[in-house]
């Protein structure tokens, strides 16, 4: 069976996100005041084959641990369809 996976990779809480902070500081000048907690992560989509949804999920989670995310500083979430 073929599955489509969407992976959201985000910086763990407490890890500095200079990119998000810089965007946040720039927004008021563009007329957007009060925007808070801007964090920038990655969104990865992919397709894979597996015999069951649970196998597909397990595979994608393993890929996250090994390659797609950097578990030292990043957390991830997997959605399957």
């Amino acid at each position, binding site marked *: 069976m073929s599955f489509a996976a969407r992976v959201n990779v985000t910086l763990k809480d407490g890890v500095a996100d*200079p*990119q998000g902070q*810089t*965007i946040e500081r*720039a927004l008021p*000048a*563009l007329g957007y005041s009060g925007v808070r907690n801007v964090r*920038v992560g990655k969104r990865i989509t992919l397709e894979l084959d597996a015999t069951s949804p649970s196998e597909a999920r397990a595979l994608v989670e393993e890929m996250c641990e090994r390659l797609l995310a950097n578990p030292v500083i990043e957390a991830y979430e997997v959605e399957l369809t």
Partner: protein
Amino acid sequence: MSGRVSIVVFPGSNCEQDCERSLQLLGADTTRVWHSETELPPTDIVVLPGGFAHGDYLRTGALARFSPIMAAVRDHAESGGLVIGICNGFQILCEAGLLPGALRKNAQLKFLCKWVDLRVETVDTPFTSQAIPGEVLRIPINHFEGNWYCSAAELERLRANDQIVFRYVGNPNGSLDDVAGIVNDKRNVLGLMPHPERACETMLGSEDGAKIFGSMLAHVASALKV
């Protein structure tokens, strides 16, 4: 050959000093302009130098294009003044819509600092009038996001209008159609990834960059005489 050059400095720009030095070697009269200014001093040429404006955060050039000075740069371009965007400056010009296309990450996903050969595709611009058509210039690149892209229709238009000014000989970064530099349709705004300011002295390996800077300074000098 004096020409009044404004070098715009964004927070995170880092090639402004180098542009200044190389342009001054060619006799230009340079002024640095901080990005938060709303007006340019009296000027013939605006340089958007290389670097990492706003850290290149979000996308290269994405935040810089909103700097207050950019309205004045746009006015300068619209009234026919010369604008050259080098590397990060090119990225900013694309984000600002002053030049078409966008710059993606290099195909190798690596930052590349190296000498490249650039073919001059048209001498019909104020930036290349001192070059010979087809001439190959040796100038370094220094970027992570130099992989230029635009839609097929846009590319057709650029080709038809002779707006592709430089192509790489040996594509270093995956750029569409080997494009290294383009001008706008009025031909007074140039964006290019390679750094001409790094190639204006033999001691540094090449003087070919002086052809680009020299062309634009000659252009404004002759315009003055008219």
